[in-house]
């Protein structure tokens, strides 16, 4: 029996670097991508010469976040599948259901699994039952200040309030003093509602000084589940990841092997299909460091490229093939994780001015050489591109590899030196400072404390 045929046409329900990444996979598979775009992205270079459909005005709620417009756009252009990318509606189970109801294949896990993992409290429960360790916290969402206070008194300060339907660091508030509790709850609820359409929040003990480590998994409809190793995303600012690397320089081999195996088992147990990430915190507060499950992202992530480079697996083409009903093209034995890989996120933000977002026109844009196969550049911008104020500030990802961490770091520093972005401020100098610092090389940092560095005044 021949494998199920792929989609003829696929709607790219995203923008920027994400849209470019999905289209690359479509091109490789011979699937025609159709770009859904907003008026603010009308002149984006990646749309030139492509089949496309305008969704609405620049504001996301009337374009990239409007489920009905997206599904109708897929229908209008005869797309039998839709790729949500990451961000926007990628973790919205109701959107996945809407796609299926109208005969459009949603590239992602089944809606019920998405819903289970998207609501954070049931996800924690499912993962605990699958054998993973979790972070102590409220049993489900908290609905009142009084209940929150009771949880706080039980598990102790400091606390982290998190949006039940959240992710990506949005809708999270730290509480160190019980007097701050009701204000923090209100703030987290507001952000949860603004970003995820759900004001419910839950509480966890804030584990400070840990490392953020996540495991990439890929599953098909036939129960085959593989992992592509872990990523260390400890270098963050305000819960926004800046640098990701694999393997983690902080994880001992025993805890790695144990958790990778459990992650695969848990993924299979919940009936997961597609690309997913299990996020953990490496809790160093006890005698031996322990990975504690935080949440599962039921989508591709920004930093998926790190695992792609290290494993040689194209996660987006696998996603599309799996959604079409094909089995995984590889098994765990086929996966060889080689060398060390580092990714830097280049954001249009000014690190010298409190990371102020810097929308505006890029006068000149030059990306580093990639000829030696050790640098990958994922971007959607070009010279003359104007970054709209409506969306995320990520404009480029640089991914460097080498046989060792030192070699990958050195190669990344060369690439950063070659990157030119005139007309806007970016996080480029921040990355140069971090990667050059003694703390980075000696591995002295955690999620709350960037490696110590000095930003040269520019």
């Amino acid at each position, binding site marked *: 029996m021949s494998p199920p045929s792929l989609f003829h046409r696929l709607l790219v329900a995203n923008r920027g670097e994400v849209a470019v990444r999905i289209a690359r996979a479509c091109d490789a598979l011979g699937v025609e991508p159709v770009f859904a775009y907003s*008026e603010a992205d009308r002149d984006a270079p990646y749309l030139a010469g492509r089949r496309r*459909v*305008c*969704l*609405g*005005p*620049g*504001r996301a709620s009337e*374009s990239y976040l409007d489920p*009905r*417009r*997206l*599904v*109708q*756009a897929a*229908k*209008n*252009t005869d797309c039998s599948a839709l790729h949500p990318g990451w961000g926007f509606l990628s973790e919205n189970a109701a959107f996945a259901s*809407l796609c299926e109801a*109208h005969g459009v294949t949603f590239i992602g896990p089944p809606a019920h699994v998405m819903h289970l993992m998207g609501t954070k409290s049931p996800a924690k429960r499912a993962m605990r039952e699958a054998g993973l360790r979790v972070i102590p916290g409220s049993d489900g969402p908290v609905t009142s200040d009084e209940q929150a206070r009771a949880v706080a008194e039980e598990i102790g300060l400091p606390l982290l309030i998190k949006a039940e339907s959240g992710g990506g660091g*949005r809708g999270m508030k730290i509480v160190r003093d019980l007097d701050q509790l009701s204000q923090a709850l*209100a703030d987290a609820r*507001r*952000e949860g509602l*603004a*970003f995820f359409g759900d004001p419910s929040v839950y509480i966890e003990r804030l584990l400070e000084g840990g490392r953020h480590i996540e495991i990439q998994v890929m599953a098909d409809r036939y129960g085959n589940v593989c992992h592509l190793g872990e990523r260390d995303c400890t270098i963050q600012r305000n819960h926004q990841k800046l640098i990701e690397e694999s393997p983690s320089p902080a994880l001992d081999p025993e805890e790695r092997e144990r958790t990778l195996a459990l992650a695969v088992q848990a993924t299979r147990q919940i009936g997961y299909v597609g690309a997913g990430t299990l996020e953990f915190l490496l809790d160093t507060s006890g005698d031996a460091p322990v990975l504690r499950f935080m949440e599962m992202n039921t989508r591709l992530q920004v930093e998926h490229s790190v695992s792609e480079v290290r494993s040689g697996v194209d996660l987006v083409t696998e996603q599309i093939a799996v959604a079409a009903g094909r089995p995984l093209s590889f098994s765990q034995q086929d996966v060889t994780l080689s060398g060390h890989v580092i990714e830097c996120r280049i954001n*249009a933000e000014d690190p010298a001015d409190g990371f*102020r*977002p810097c*929308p505006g026109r890029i006068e000149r844009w030059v990306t580093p050489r990639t000829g030696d196969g050790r640098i990958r550049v994922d971007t959607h911008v070009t010279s003359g591109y104007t970054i709209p*104020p*409506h*969306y*995320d*500030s990520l404009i480029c990802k640089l991914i460097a590899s080498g046989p060792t961490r030192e070699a990958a770091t050195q190669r990344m520093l060369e690439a950063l030196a070659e990157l030119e972005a005139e007309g806007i401020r970016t996080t480029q100098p921040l990355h140069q400072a971090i990667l050059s610092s003694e703390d980075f090389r000696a591995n002295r940092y955690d999620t709350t404390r960037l490696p110590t560095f000095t930003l040269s005044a520019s």
Partner: protein
Amino acid sequence: MSSRLHAERRQALVSRLDDGELELRSPTVALWRGAPQPGTVITQQGSLGELEVLGVLSPLVAPAGVSGVVTGEARRGAAAKRPVEYGEVLLRLAPLGALGNAEERAPGEASASTASWVFRAPTSGRFYVRPAPDQPAFVTEGAHIERGHTTCLLEVMKTFNRIQLSGDELPQKVRVLRIVPADGDDVEQGDPLLELGPA
């Protein structure tokens, strides 16, 4: 299933062309049915057919103040569904002389503003007058505020920024004469946020 849900009316988007004709555009991604034939006179709020979004039909109408006669050649099969995208041109209307829509518009700039100072947006973004939907506004017209007072939230690239009143030329205390953008408006860097007078 023959019964169909009917949703609220949608108004077409309008742009005025140099030759005086009007272009009516689709307000969303949809299937457009029942397009009026050339020669049809469209009055304001008049029917332009229906928009179908995921099986739900909405009457499509001309916005208030827009009327004219549909120009162009008659198309066969105009009653069939046509897939349209947001902003796609649906019809052109030639103005009807007799109806003579008023062309006058409000002057572009606020006339004879009495403001002593204008506080402008430090960055482009979306303007919010209150910290949360159920909370009071940061400032109200007529209020006295001091430098450093939070005036609004600007949402820039998914980040909410509290914007404090600042400006070298401002006295320590001022009175708010007018809040310029409406809540939820998109503003550009340098757009006026507040018109201010002496306290």
